[in-house]
């Protein structure tokens, strides 16, 4: 091949490559195209729900498998004054609110949460970034708390409102962390509000005093610093309407994959 021809081919290859990339970047910004891509989330959720028993358990591990370097992510220490006050008095003034579409709203002290029916499990925590850590969790079964509050029949989702502002730059009031799950995951036996990690009191960087464990989904669903559990019929009007802090920022609401 002559040098000219080679140079021409290289140039043609490079410009085709950058056209392809620029095209992809354009499509990423195109809302119609994104809408098309988003159907895959519904397919994944539908397919997984179809082939998975609603009570099928996430794998549980042995004590020897527990990670010594369990990685905290998201907020490590909430700077919100209300949380700082609670933390300063070791959560003596903390109340877990359970409200929304329930017959019997609750406001539970930590002692009351610890006295509720509990479950202990050693599970793998899968971050959306790709890493995994294994930890031991003990917490109150969410199903028992919801039964005590008596869900109204129109309740479809359980929303977890958290104490931490993860995006201080959000001007629309959607900077606080929150997450939501449907009733299948809410009533799953491994879904707990954990107050213990690896046989010790849940550390602040992992979400003290309470964090959600929803073991068949990725880490960002496992809301930390949970203050309020709200039963709702629709996710509209909460945050930016997508059902969670990260879903509001483009991540899937269904994070089973």
């Amino acid at each position, binding site marked *: 091949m002559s040098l000219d021809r080679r140079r021409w081919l290289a140039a043609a290859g490079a410009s085709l490559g950058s056209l392809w990339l620029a095209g992809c970047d354009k499509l990423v910004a195109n809302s119609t195209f994104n809408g098309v891509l988003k159907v895959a989330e519904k397919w994944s959720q539908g397919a997984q729900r179809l082939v998975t028993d609603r009570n099928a358990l996430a794998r549980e591990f042995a004590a020897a498998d527990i990670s010594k370097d369990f990685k905290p992510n998201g907020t490590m220490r909430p700077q919100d004054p209300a949380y700082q006050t609670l933390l300063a008095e070791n959560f003596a003034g903390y109340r877990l609110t359970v409200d929304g579409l329930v017959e019997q709203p609750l406001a539970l002290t930590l002692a009351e949460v610890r006295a509720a029916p509990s479950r202990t499990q050693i599970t793998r925590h899968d971050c959306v970034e790709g890493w995994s850590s294994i930890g031991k969790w003990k917490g109150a079964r969410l199903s028992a708390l919801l039964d005590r509050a008596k869900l109204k029949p129109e309740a479809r989702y359980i929303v977890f409102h958290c104490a931490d502002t993860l995006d201080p730059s959000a001007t629309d009031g959607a900077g606080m962390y929150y997450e939501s799950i449907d009733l299948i995951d809410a009533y799953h036996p491994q879904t707990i509000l954990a107050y213990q990690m690896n046989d010790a009191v849940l550390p602040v960087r992992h979400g003290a005093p309470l964090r959600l464990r929803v073991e068949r989904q990725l880490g960002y669903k496992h809301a930390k610093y949970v203050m309020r559990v709200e039963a709702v019929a629709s996710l509209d009007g909460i945050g930016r309407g997508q059902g969670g802090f990260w879903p509001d920022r483009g991540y899937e609401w269904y994070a089973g*994959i």
Partner: protein
Amino acid sequence: MADKPAKVLVRRHSGVTRVTHWLNVLAVSLLLMSGLQIFNAHPALYWGHKSTFAEPWVSMKKEEVGGEARGITTVGGLRFDTTGVLGWSGKEGAREQRGFPSWATVPSYRSLADGRRWHFFFAWLFAINLAVYWLWGLAGGHVGRDLLPTRAQLKPRHFLHEIAAHARLRFPKGEEARTYNVIQKITYLLVVAVLLPLMVATGLSMSPGFNAALPGLIDVFGGRQSARTIHFLAAGGIVIFIIVHLLLVVLSGAWNNLRSMITGRYAITVEGDRP
């Protein structure tokens, strides 16, 4: 003129092969690039169930070396300076810490959420396309007829001969070119029966929802982090296949090969009057 060599067009690829091939080109290229975007969210690989953050077996990151930022890639105990490509890349003066460079990812800028959305959409396309190919390939006889090597082709003598011919870039001509040669058959089988299904299986193994549905699958790979590593390695195998495949397509007659994958017709030179 019955005895003069003549060029004839033969039916080479069926409609299903051609359509699934080009859908696969689209899906695999976007899966590779969105996959690297996802990899970049945590550019390190581990073996087993969990991440051992201090000891990844592969990592790509920015490090200060003698007061200067360099891209350092580690593989096992080996360290490589990969500045400009892996770990630390971008235009001079605007370099950033990222596993793979922007020209290799979709989107080109860092966005795990967008990368995932693309990856899962095209993963569905890829898996459905692969399933259609296999159902048709088994039911319609394509796999048995065109891909499984014949007994004669598997004889060591023939096999070695084919390897030697390939190495000298001498490709089958005439009647021999009507069917795939044994190296083609084995390579294609390796891709469609091993590498591509392995991508689906290791991909599904990384899904915590799917783990609960089918706990046995992840054990086949030795845990979620092993599955992620194998997913990455198998993708590398596909990239190597694509490079060699494209080279051979060009060297053995670019236009003839391309036409056969578009119109289905492939030109061969035959002696005598047999079309």
